[in-house]
């Protein structure tokens, strides 16, 4: 089975062809990072306009690189939710038009489920190990941070165990990077600087550290960095900057890792998975692997290309839906909300 995936939920226009084994035949991503960088964040209308300009060439290139023609496809999957509605609409409409005109089944995919299943993508001939259901997945990106219990690829079998009460982890990285004048997006820059810094120099408190809580809070860490800068000024040397980045990153990674393994322990599962853009963070990857090893558990990390927004994960998630015999109608719509039920209430206060 060969499925074309289309993704346009935020600031990447992407298309990919994936088969039933998870093998990625092509994966084309057009990033809008440069377009939005000057504003320090994503401008929704600019994102929509850029998606529209690029959607057809990106899909055509994905088919071309896979040496696949439209008639050879067995289905078309498109990110339908969650995301910027104007941006999502471009991909959804283009995918609908293509599927309708070609007489192919269409399936809408939840972007978060795409990230959760990205770990099954095979990007080379040499197959990588994949987790067994059920597993626990930490999904951390610029808009979402949550831990899920995943019993199968079906949305009904994916349960949120805890999520952030305020900022997403990636959002905190971006905001701290902004405080430090590192530009947008901040995650990769902080990761790079942190690699040479001393994470123990500034002992930022890990928020929501209660052992049994699976909820996160990242606005507090960001505030600690802001207060540090208010008191001491911005770092004046590369070394100070690296230490500050390393200390912030250590607090964030500690929070993410602790709760992932607490969740795994509470669920009694042996396999843990990470996904989303923050899963590309080198310290998070190393810490999760080390912690899993220590506990005789198995950690599964998607390749970097599978962590950031891509259409291969959408194709694969759509393929799993098609395999269950589910197809969506031509009235498929775009929506900003995920299909996954939220367990965590946003905001402060007692729970």
């Amino acid at each position: 089975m060969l499925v074309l995936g289309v993704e346009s939920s935020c600031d990447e226009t992407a298309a990919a062809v994936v088969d039933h084994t998870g093998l990625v035949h092509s994966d084309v991503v057009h990033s809008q990072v440069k377009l939005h960088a000057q504003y320090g964040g994503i401008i929704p209308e600019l994102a929509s306009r850029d998606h529209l300009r690029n959607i057809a060439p990106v899909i055509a290139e994905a088919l071309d690189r896979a040496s696949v023609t439209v008639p050879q496809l067995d289905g078309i999957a498109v990110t339908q939710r969650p995301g910027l509605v104007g941006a999502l609409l471009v991909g959804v409409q283009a995918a609908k038009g293509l599927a309708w005109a070609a007489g192919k089944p269409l399936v809408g995919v939840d972007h978060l489920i795409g990230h959760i299943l990205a770990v099954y993508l095979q990007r080379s001939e040499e197959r990588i190990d994949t987790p067994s259901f059920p597993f626990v997945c930490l999904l951390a990106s610029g808009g979402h941070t949550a831990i899920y219990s995943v019993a199968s690829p079906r949305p009904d079998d994916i349960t949120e165990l805890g999520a952030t009460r305020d900022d997403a982890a990636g959002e905190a990285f971006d905001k701290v990077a902004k405080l430090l004048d590192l530009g947008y997006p901040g995650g990769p820059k902080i990761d790079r600087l942190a690699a040479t810094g001393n994470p123990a120099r500034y002992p930022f408190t890990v928020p929501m550290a209660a052992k049994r809580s699976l909820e996160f809070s990242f606005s507090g860490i960001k505030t600690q960095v802001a207060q540090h800068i208010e008191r001491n000024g911005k770092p004046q040397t590369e070394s100070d900057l690296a230490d500050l980045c390393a200390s912030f990153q250590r607090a964030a990674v500690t929070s993410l890792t602790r709760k992932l393994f607490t969740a795994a322990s509470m669920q009694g599962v042996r396999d843990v998975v990470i996904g989303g853009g923050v899963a590309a963070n080198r310290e998070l990857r190393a810490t999760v692997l080390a912690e899993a090893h220590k506990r005789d558990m198995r950690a599964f990390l998607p390749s970097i290309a599978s962590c950031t927004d891509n259409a291969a994960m959408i194709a694969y998630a759509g393929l799993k839906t098609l395999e269950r015999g589910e197809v969506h109608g031509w009235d498929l719509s775009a929506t900003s909300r995920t299909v996954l039920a939220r367990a965590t209430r946003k905001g402060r206060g007692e729970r």
Partner: protein
Amino acid sequence: MRRICALDTSSAVGTFALAEVSDAGVRVLLEREQRVSNAHGESLLPLLDAACRELGWAPKTIERWIVGIGPGSFTGARIATSLVKGIVLATEAEVTAVSSFEVLAFGLPVAIAFVDAMKGDRYVQAWRDGQPSEPVYVPANALEAWMRGAIDAAGPSVTLIGDVPVVAGLGVEVVERTPVRASEMIGIGLRKAAAAATDLEPLYVRSADLHVKVSEAK
């Protein structure tokens, strides 16, 4: 006999028409309109699919898509344009873009065409002998002065057409009409050369609002 489809979703009314073109002329076989609020994305393709089934048309037999590019709702205009971009990937059909201004000013020697830009604002384009000026966005509070200046420049024979703001004492013909119908786009679209689908874009006129939304979807 060539099969064509014209469609427009740039206003609150979604519209499409299916027509056949032969040496004898254009025959509109079916036209549909639906007033929907922010729901063209859900409604357009099911309606189009049903219409094609009614006529026994397979999508791949439609040789040209004439697409309304607004101006109007940015998102609305992108509904039809992105749908057609997807269709054309599968069928390699021809594509032509037609603006609402072209439809409104069609056949008028001197005209100023007005399209709703929400909150009392307008998109405007002046036409003389079939030649358009650069389209502009005029905020509500500047419209009256803009209109009087434009009428002075165009002369007394000008026709104001479209979603024309109510201003007393202009002394020229006013044709209040909205919205554009898909069947009206057909003749204009067929006179134009086919364009590359990749170049198909709404006529935005106005630049994007620079409202940052860092964390919405990542």
